[in-house]
């Protein structure tokens, strides 16, 4: 199945084009958990702080579904 992924801020360097916020598609098996994306993309777990799936913050054990939209963020803040 396919999921759409966006990597933000400093995580952009792990995206296929090296660009932040640009969506790309990944092919994953049914039943894949969110944290499996880390291995596939070579992202150290501790560099990710907030994990969105379809606009909701999720935990690493979230089981992905077809066409899910994933957004990963490093620790960021502002105001």
């Amino acid at each position, binding site marked *: 199945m396919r999921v759409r992924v*966006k990597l*933000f*801020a*400093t995580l*952009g360097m792990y995206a296929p084009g090296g660009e*932040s*916020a*640009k969506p790309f598609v990944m092919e994953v098996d049914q039943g894949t958990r969110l944290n499996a994306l880390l291995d596939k993309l070579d992202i150290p777990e501790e560099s990710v*702080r*907030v994990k*969105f799936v379809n*606009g*909701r*913050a999720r935990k690493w054990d979230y089981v992905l579904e077809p066409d899910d939209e994933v*957004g990963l*963020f*490093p*620790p*960021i*803040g*502002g*105001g």
Partner: protein
Amino acid sequence: MWFLRINMKDRTHQLTEVPEKYKKLAGRSLTSNLIADEVPPLAHPLGPNNKLVFSPGFVTGTSAPSSSRISVGGKSPLTGGIKESNAGTPWAWKLGRMRIKALIVEGQPEDKGEFWGLVIGLDKETGQPTLEWFDATEFTGQDAYDVYPMVFKKFEGRRVSVCGIGMASEHAYGNAGVIFEDMSQNPSRFAGRGGLGSVMGSKGLKFILLDDAGAPGVEIADKELFDEGRKKLAAALNEHAITKPKGGLNTYGTAVLVNILNEAGGLPTRNFSRGRFENAAKIAGEAIFDGVKERLGEERYNHACSPGCIIRCSNTWYRKDKSEHVSCVEYESDWAFGANLEIDDLDTISELVKLCNGYGLDTIETGVTLGVAMEAGVLPFGDGEAAIEMVHKMGKGEPIGRILGSGTGTAGKILGVVRTPAVKGQGMPAYEPRAVKGIGITYATSTMGADHTAGYTIAPEILAVMDDLDPLSKEGKIALSRAFQATTAFIDTSGHCLFIAFAILDIASGYQGMIDEVNGVLGTKWTADDILELGTEVLRVERKFNEAAGIGKQADRIPEFMHTEPLPPHNVVFEIDEETLDKVYGEL
């Protein structure tokens, strides 16, 4: 330490030692207590009985990191309630080092249209503050970017810092900030919210310059404890991914929030009608960083707005020809002119920020009011040129500009707009209450009107700082907002920039460091509970003033449309009822 009172009726002044009652107060706790004690709650904000108070925080002027903040207080012409607005600027640092704990501006001249400049220096022998006046009428009616260099030139050879007001304040708008200079002498650091610039203008005061030559610096009761605290706080700021050098804020600035709020469906778009902006990535902090890199041919990290900041979050946008366009494009301003107006061009957004700085307008209030005007059909959504033209009309005082300059709540009424995103008349900042419940509770109940900085629950609700809470759930959010409002009141009292919160909410030794610093300066033995109580007491004082001014719990409400119109993409309303909202202050 001094209390310096200036009476603008006849430009006399009075210098006293700090009265006992106020010795353990500073920053917001001092401005709010003085306003509550001395301004009749029903006074007209622009009349002779309102006062304008400036106070540096406890540690402002010391070597404590990220602490060059000034609190400005008064009765707000925008909300009609008490107001504290703060800014980071060298001016704050100097006032602290000159040991002026409170500068209180009172009265007003009988002649309207008189504008004065004041230079506060120190007597070489006695160390006492001295005052020099100059006629500032020639500086009125002009852009602050033109005026500030003239003022610095006029006092060439002296190390002055400038606080002033722009044309928005000369027109007495509800939307008018007090302008402070940044580290490059630009008129770009604002105590922006609540129209305090107009209070200053109503007193015929155009500038307050500080010349800190010979300043003794802040008196520190226990130097060892202070140093220990300062080091703990600096270590936390240097370690945390958000606040450290080349960390989130230093790299991308506050506008790094655009994408995450957009993902969360909480980025107010098209005058608070959606929670996502399809072109968010084009205006995000990452786009600013990359855009600057492309234009300059090299990476640029951000700078400090004021002396001694470790976090250094202030960015600069450059034009295509590499010339500096404006500093700083904050998240709030970027959003207010960007997603909120459906404008996706950073050059246009930067121009709007620059115009606001030049005219002395608050960027948040301006952007939110323009959103309401677009909703009313006064100008089209997404039309950057029309927005620029409208801000000129505001600055120049044309009739439609005056309506918009009155602020979001009033403009919404005049234009007949139901979807007016304001609380207590003040326009809402860049977080959607329907999608982030805790911040909605802060907007509704804060003594300041809709103000994100008053209780920034975004940290645990969106950024997973301190905790990891579901923004769409109302569970536990009343207590959360209350605790954040009280803690914030203390941080605004300490003199620190609120952005230290990201590090100290995650790193306990950093939090302790802030307390140690304050205890070091004052010689107190305050605990974490004590500072929370101090913060809570500030809220009680502010609340009491507001109630006496006629702003009670009936004003602690989110606009009706947010209760009835579901917000995409999550299709949620703000469902927290009145009784629940009343618990924030009811159980303070």
